[in-house]
């Protein structure tokens, strides 16, 4: 398969892994992959088996489903409860638990919940069901925000009134800043998010290099992409440099996607603050819909309870999200909290570090520790 197999070529991969081993020597490196897509790829391709042990990968906050506070899920579902409303969301959202269950559980109890593959599919539902209201539960970083914006622009142009958006779009830079400001965080470098950067470009990361003196390499998602990015980071670190570099040039333009940024600016405004699961309130870290598009803003159109729901006390999602704890070090991991019965959102999305670790890794770890005893 073109554009995929080239980046999984065994010989190149083992050469690159060899180069990593040579560059890493015996120093310990802590690198954070910001994006949940990278976390998923690391487990899916078993990259930990290829990397030397002194390269420690810390999973970052870049999984939109994982950082969404439970109260927002409750709020979104409350709009569709007992109303003539179709609740539309990405598949990613479907198993995320609210206080009264996930969207899928609400569907089983009779709510009209639909999986859509893009916001424009939700708008299509509105066109096909003119006598009902379609609520699109929008999530995602700058990756998906432009398509939500374009969909609202189209809805306005077409004069569609039975459509609204419950907006949970967040922005990546304030989250990285919050991670860096966290006192218990020691990181050497960042693997930069690939998909987000197709929209925002590489410039917004320059402060990380300049002010925080941490290298960052924007990376693709194939095994070879990620290994090359690690090579680039090691070269910088060994040379005492801190630069923004772009490994994912085949997709990410340095300046980003201006048309997408323009669409976002047309529709969204920055929220003064927004709650992130595990990280708390972060100022100017999320988007809301501006006055011009107010008619499509579900938060203005419907009364939303807006109740804050605290995470279960015992769950240590915050520590895992910040990379302070590894997934299996959480008190609930694999016992009370499993992919079938997730307590924290990190266990829900396959991009969440807990679910990825649970699905692909933890029994392997158990197996290794068993064989080392024997």
């Amino acid at each position, binding site marked *: 398969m073109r554009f995929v197999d080239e980046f999984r070529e065994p010989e190149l991969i083992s050469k690159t892994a060899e180069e990593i081993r040579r560059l890493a020597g015996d120093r310990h490196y802590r690198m954070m992959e910001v994006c949940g897509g990278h976390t998923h790829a690391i487990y899916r391709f078993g990259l930990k*088996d*290829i990397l030397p042990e002194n390269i420690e990968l810390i999973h970052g906050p870049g999984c939109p489903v994982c950082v969404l506070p439970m109260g927002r899920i409750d709020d979104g579902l409350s709009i569709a409860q007992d109303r003539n409303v179709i609740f539309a969301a990405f598949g990613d959202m479907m198993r995320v638990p609210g206080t009264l269950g996930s969207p899928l559980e609400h569907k089983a109890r009779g709510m009209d919940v639909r999986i859509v*593959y893009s916001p424009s599919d939700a708008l299509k539902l509105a066109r096909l069901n003119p006598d009902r209201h379609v609520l699109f539960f929008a999530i995602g970083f700058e990756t998906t925000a432009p398509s939500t914006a374009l969909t609202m622009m189209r809805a306005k142009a077409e004069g569609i009134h039975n459509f609204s958006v419950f907006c949970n779009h967040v922005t990546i830079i304030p989250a990285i800043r919050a991670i860096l400001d966290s006192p218990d965080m020691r990181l050497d470098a960042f693997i930069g998010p690939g998909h987000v950067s197709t929209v925002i470009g590489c410039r917004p990361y320059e402060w990380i290099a300049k002010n925080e003196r941490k290298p960052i390499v924007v990376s693709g998602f194939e095994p070879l992409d990620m290994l090359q990015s690690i090579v680039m980071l090691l070269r910088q670190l060994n040379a005492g440099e801190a630069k923004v570099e772009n490994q994912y040039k085949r997709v990410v333009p340095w300046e980003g996607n201006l048309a997408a940024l323009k669409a976002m600016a047309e529709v969204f405004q920055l929220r003064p603050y927004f709650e992130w699961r595990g990280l708390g309130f972060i100022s100017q870290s999320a988007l809301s819909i501006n006055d011009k598009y107010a008619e499509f803003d579900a938060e203005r159109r419907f009364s939303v309870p807006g109740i804050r729901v605290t995470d279960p006390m015992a769950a240590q999602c915050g520590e895992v999200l910040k990379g302070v704890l590894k997934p299996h070090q959480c008190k609930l991991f694999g016992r009370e909290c499993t992919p079938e019965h997730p307590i924290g959102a990190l266990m829900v999305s396959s991009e969440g570090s807990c679910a990825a670790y649970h*699905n692909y890794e933890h029994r392997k770890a158990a197996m290794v520790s068993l064989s080392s005893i024997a």
Partner: protein
Amino acid sequence: MAHGAGGKASRKLIEGLFAPLLFGAEPGPLGDAAHVDMNGTKVAITTDAFVVKPLSFPGGSIGELAVNGTVNDLAVSGAKAEAMVVSYVLEAGTPTPVLEAAIRAMAKAARDAGVRIVAGDTKVVEHGKADQMYITTTGIGRLLPGVSLDPRSVQVGDKILLSGPIGDHGITILLARGELDFEADLRSDTRSVLPLVEALIRAAGPGIRWMRDPTRGGAATSLNELARDCGLGMVLFEDQIPVRDTVRGACELLGLDPLHIANEGQFLAVVSPEYADAAINALSLAPGGSEAQVIGEVREQPAGAVLVTTLYGGSRIVDMLVGDPLPRIC
């Protein structure tokens, strides 16, 4: 809803509620069909309910699925389907041509598979209480000589065989629902696997330890069940697993694993190593078996789990499917 998706929750429901109440506390490993002794004659019997949306899709319809599903459950338990009874639950208002198409498809599939449909029943429920139609088929079959299957007979060193490319059916259904704005030249793989199973038994009968048709939940779920039942590890070689490019492409786009996608015309077999070559030769020569492959082997570790290894030295544990496969977008 996850309890119906064929993965972990389905298994829990069966082991936690149905099996203890219906078969007593120790039902043993759960197979695709039961073998029953009737006055000294052993027969195999199985039943399956079919719920699919849309009712017809490229490569087949609910009618073929209902026949082939039951024929295949019998085949992989080492039996040839002889007779079948069917029952239809129909939603009031289902257009006659839709029903007729399903019945015609069923009749043709039965002829192709060499099974007689000998009795049936219909019920009609109110409009809105069923997705046009649900079909249940129950099949009875004659045990094929020369093979004895038991997951507990699986041993370290045994080879894991797959009859052909995986994921065709599940991805075809996903695309046929029309919710995705992409199209692919892909058809459901629904077919009777009996001819392939017979060819395999003729060539390698004494070496066959276990067979299963990986329907809902995909190959990963079937192999996880086997791993649990025999307490050994199933190690798969990713580059040896046949997957069509269209299926791989769709899975890459949607963040799905082909090993979790449903199949309706493939089967997995575990064969002792000395019979592996004969088994693959026989399958490859049989009609529809040219893409059969050895995809892995049984090892001591990871005990009770499935491990997929890649050419470049990475590996991952692949669990049973949890709920339905959900696409990842954001």
